């Protein structure tokens, strides 16, 4: 872990991506960080009063934008790692800040050096995120709603919707679409070139609102016909596509489950 000047006070982090970017930028420019994170004080206790000079104090969007620019310009892979570390929800922020400090001290190549424990742990979490993003690019299943919107329900292990958005925006062209994360109760709606984030009931309400049985039946028929019975290997199928994703796949979900959606 990074060498720090004396026993500096733990940095406050509110869990947001914006404030993580600010912290990573700070660690990068200082070449050090205190070595631990704490939750911020509740606002009524006076978050702004308590903030020390140079200590980030929550998710100020303008500060985050500045941090983002600097990370992209000087941080090499650090910006991408920040996003993935945050999406992973695995608590690897300390490893991220430790790596940012090393890069800030001029230890070029630290982000690729798997002999460093912080790189190894951080990268392992990030590659789980990348794998899930890539998987869901294929496994998200959309169906048309009565308002013409194409909507997909997902229950990802990691908070990957933000990484899926650019992929589907490019794929759908001008077609409006929504991604709904049932587990986190958040959704993104892409319409007319704009992206809107929703949460709670509003997010869930963006899910499919009618049956798409005709197209799904055609797809199931195709899926069954394309399998080669002489080569059956269900173990391989499960390994490549873990069963926890099957629920939202019309070709694999059981009929009862499908109709309850």
């Amino acid at each position: 872990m990074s060498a720090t000047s004396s026993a500096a006070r733990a940095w406050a982090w509110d869990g947001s991506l914006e404030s993580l970017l600010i912290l990573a930028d700070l660690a990068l420019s200082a070449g050090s960080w205190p070595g631990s994170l704490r939750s911020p004080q509740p606002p009524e206790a006076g978050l702004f009063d308590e903030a020390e000079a140079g200590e980030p104090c929550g998710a100020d969007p303008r500060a985050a934008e500045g941090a983002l620019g600097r990370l992209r310009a000087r941080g090499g892979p650090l910006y991408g790692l920040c996003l993935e570390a945050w999406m992973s929800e695995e608590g690897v922020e300390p490893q991220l800040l430790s790596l940012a400090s090393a890069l800030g001290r001029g230890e070029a190549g630290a982000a690729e050096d798997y002999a460093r424990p912080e790189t190894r742990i951080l990268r392992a979490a990030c590659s789980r995120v990348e794998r899930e993003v890539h998987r869901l690019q294929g496994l998200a299943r959309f169906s048309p709603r009565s308002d013409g919107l194409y909507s997909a329900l997902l229950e990802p292990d990691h908070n990957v919707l933000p990484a899926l958005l650019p992929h589907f925006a490019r794929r759908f062209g001008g077609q409006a679409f929504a991604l709904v994360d049932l587990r986190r109760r958040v959704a993104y709606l892409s319409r007319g070139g704009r992206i809107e984030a929703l949460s709670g009931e509003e997010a869930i309400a963006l899910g499919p609102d009618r049956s798409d049985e005709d197209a799904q039946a055609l797809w199931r028929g195709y899926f069954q016909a394309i399998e080669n019975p002489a080569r059956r290997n269900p173990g391989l199928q499960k390994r490549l596509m873990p069963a926890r994703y099957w629920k939202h796949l019309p070709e694999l979900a059981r009929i009862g489950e499908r109709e309850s959606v």
Partner: protein
Amino acid sequence: MELADKLALLAGAARYDASCASSGSSRGAGPGGIGASSPAGVCHSWTGDGRCVSLLKLLYSNACRNDCAYCASRSSADTRRASFSPEELVRITMAFYRRNYIEGLFLSSGIFSDPDIVMERLVEVARRLREEEGFGGYIHLKVIPGSSEKLLRRAGAYADRLSANIELPTQASLSRLAPQKSGTEILGAMRLMSEAEGESREESGRARGWRRAAPPPFAPGGQSTQLVVGASPEDDRTIVSLASSLYRRFGLRRVYYSAFLPVAPDPRLPPPAAPPLRREHRLYQADWLMRCYGYAAEEILGAAEPSLDAELDPKAAWALRNPGFFPVEVESAEYERLLRVPGLGITGARRIVAARRGSRLEAEDLGKMGIVMRRARWFLSLRGRRLGEELGPELLRPLLAEGGGAARPPSSQLELAFA
């Protein structure tokens, strides 16, 4: 015939084509259209045989005038025949694509008429998708050998990938099992595609030089082919060296190998048996070594070895035949040398190269870095010291064989016995 029945029939007939890749191309939607493809490709599902479903893989028609012994759609087969219309294919493709079931369309066909007429139908489907639907997803078209160069060039303007299947490894086997097919014609189609690809690359280079918009590239995902393994008597060495020359001469992106599945008894075919899946797997491994690891065909199978080892993967087999190449030094060996170590893949070799710049590596770091030390230790040294005992090929072989359980170093008694 109902659309659903037709879909099942013509997908069932297309399932013998192994290629389902949606990779190697990058394009966006046309005006008002939908769809994009990215170089890495995307898998949308996996069937019960463990194969990735990326494209909607269909035959335009399963009516065929050829009578190839190994093919389910051969003219003498007693099977229902049906054909799609271009409208139906466009409709299903778009409906599936919008729902993110597929990355695009793979369209092949039985030879129901003159090659040009069949090819024209396939091109027409692709044209409608691109021009009328503004479809930016992936399109793989099968090239019908014997169709005209003009049609082939039109196909390349719409498709991301084209393929002409070589089907069998030699002309002799083609003449016996697929008497209406000609190796010369198939290789001729490959040559035309490779030339058109080259011209298209030059043209877009020139256009860039003049800062002009480049014409649509010819099949930017390149061409692939497929051959059936086990329906004819050729050995692995013949197949591996054929694949190697296809990569070299025509710049193919992929050669697919398809284990022969008996579809009907035929005196020209070997007696029914389980498909040679292990052999197919070994051929894919050998192919991978040629494409990504810099092995020459002659290194994989020398003149004395007609077949790939069933128990050993071809990389381990090469390592055992070349003990003088090892140990490879972790601290200083070039990347290409590291790649030849069993248990070390592209990722592991890259990690070693990156990590040794920054840290002094210790043996226990390597396992943590994701290297399969169970296999690699016999072939590596660190600052001059071997990471595993020096064992001869006979002792190493069972440790590297697949399905041999956990490989453990031999006990000291064993060592004494062989000392």
